[in-house]
């Protein structure tokens, strides 16, 4: 081969090599650019989804059902009067309550739960909590008063084991004010406290108590609190004691220095004994209003009565959580006894007791189908001359209820 040919071939090879290298470089540059663009896009996505200090979410519950009622009223010396109703919507327990939770960091929490009960839209609670220190939470606003365990923990339809609420358990309910609470360890045990200072209750002309509402009815404030001890290290048993004291008279009314004292005790025991999970709950509360002169609506004369009420319930539920059959393990059998006594010789005096037996089917951990049969007997101890009605009332209710927490 001549030197000229060799030079030509070398030049051709060099040109081809240069062309190939440039092509590869161009392709690599394109790949790098694509990768960089992709990385930039991912970085932007991460930046967009970066968790802020605030977080807002909506949970809540819906309860819907059917109730068949038969009421037999037997007046003293008269024939029995029977009435029957079949109601969709479960007039006693229908509820649609979205709960709004809004926290800022891990120190501030706002809780707001409006509720539609079939006839009106109300508010179950609207309060702000500040988690000041371990075992110290300060709250303000409209909140469930720390008395007993039912109203604060067990009233939600997807938690309650039977369809109706225990009668007479609604006081002291919810109120405006401030409070402090917390849970603390105690060796193998645990204890908790929950104390509030609120507007307080209002004494009605017939001697009953109700929440005062947004506008306070007097300058007094009401102290309410609950202390609880969980003596076992597995938190299976909780024993609580509650108390409340405050003025209840409307400012300028005829009820001088009217005040109420409430005290109560509660118990919760949940334990698994294979294959069953036993759940026992109970609460007792007593309401006292100091001696007052009330006015008869019939002739406007004054009269008095010992204004003391007691309410109590005890319930047990059993669920075979370790059963191998899925249908069986999702069933829960529940029984509740309720006793409620209102002041004798008042317009609303009665001795009431109720038994509920229920069979629940858990569709998942937070939605349940409940079948409850409830029967109750009420003996009137009312003051007839003041407008009360004498007689007995028997009720039989069948509930079919669905409740879900979302």
């Amino acid at each position, binding site marked *: 081969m001549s030197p000229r040919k060799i030079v030509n071939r070398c030049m051709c090879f060099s040109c081809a090599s240069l062309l190939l290298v440039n092509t590869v470089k161009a392709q690599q540059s394109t790949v790098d650019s694509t990768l960089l663009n992709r990385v930039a896009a991912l970085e932007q996505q991460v930046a967009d989804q970066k968790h802020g200090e605030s977080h807002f*979410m909506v949970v809540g519950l819906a309860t819907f059902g059917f109730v068949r009622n038969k009421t037999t009223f037997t007046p003293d010396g008269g024939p029995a009067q029977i009435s029957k109703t079949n109601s969709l919507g479960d007039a006693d327990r229908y509820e649609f309550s979205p709960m709004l939770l809004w926290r800022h960091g891990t120190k501030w929490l706002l809780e707001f739960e409006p509720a539609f009960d079939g006839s009106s839209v109300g508010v179950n609670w609207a309060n702000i909590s500040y988690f000041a220190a371990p075992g110290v939470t300060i709250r303000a606003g409209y909140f469930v008063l720390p008395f007993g365990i039912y109203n604060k923990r067990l009233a939600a339809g997807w938690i309650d084991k039977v369809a109706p609420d225990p009668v007479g358990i609604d006081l002291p309910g919810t109120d405006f004010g401030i409070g402090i609470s917390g849970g603390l360890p105690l060796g*193998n045990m645990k204890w908790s406290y929950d104390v509030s200072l609120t507007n307080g209750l209002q004494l009605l002309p017939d001697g009953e108590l109700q929440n005062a509402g947004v506008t306070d009815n007097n300058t007094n404030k009401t102290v309410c609190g609950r202390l609880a001890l969980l003596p076992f290290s597995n938190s299976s048993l909780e024993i609580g004691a509650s108390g409340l004291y405050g003025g209840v008279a409307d400012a300028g009314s005829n009820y001088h220095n009217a005040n109420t004292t409430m005290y109560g005790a509660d118990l919760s025991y949940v334990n698994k004994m294979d294959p069953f999970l036993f759940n026992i709950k109970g609460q007792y509360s007593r309401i006292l209003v100091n001696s007052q002169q009330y006015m008869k609506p019939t002739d406007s004369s004054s009269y008095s009565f010992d204004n003391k009420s007691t309410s109590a319930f005890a319930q047990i539920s059993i669920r075979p959580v370790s059963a191998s059959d899925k249908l069986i393990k999702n069933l829960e059998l529940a029984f509740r006894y309720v006793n409620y006594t209102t002041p004798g010789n008042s317009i609303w005096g009665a001795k009431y007791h109720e038994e509920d037996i229920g069979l629940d089917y858990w569709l998942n951990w937070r939605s349940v189908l409940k079948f409850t049969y409830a029967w109750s007997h009420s003996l009137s101890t009312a003051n007839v001359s003041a407008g009360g009605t004498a007689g007995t009332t028997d009720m039989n209710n069948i509930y079919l209820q669905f409740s879900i927490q979302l």
Partner: protein
Amino acid sequence: MKANNINRMTWMMIAGTVIVCAVLMNSCMESQKVAGKSGVQLWAENCQRCHNTPSPNTFSHEQWVTIGMHMQTRAQLTEKERDKIVAFLTQ
């Protein structure tokens, strides 16, 4: 002499108060048995006091933190219990 007695009384009261506070604070310490509990154990023990135990898949990480604070106000959980339960649910 009188001033010394008052000072002694004052010191005794302060010492007594400190001892009582120390005993109370110490008694509010958790035992080793309780301190060694895992999040899953606390989740199983505490949630079922009121309702069924929730599935960890129900809510996102951020939502569980919010729910944990809400449940602390409801069930009076201790702060350590809340943190451990939330840590388990967000794994």
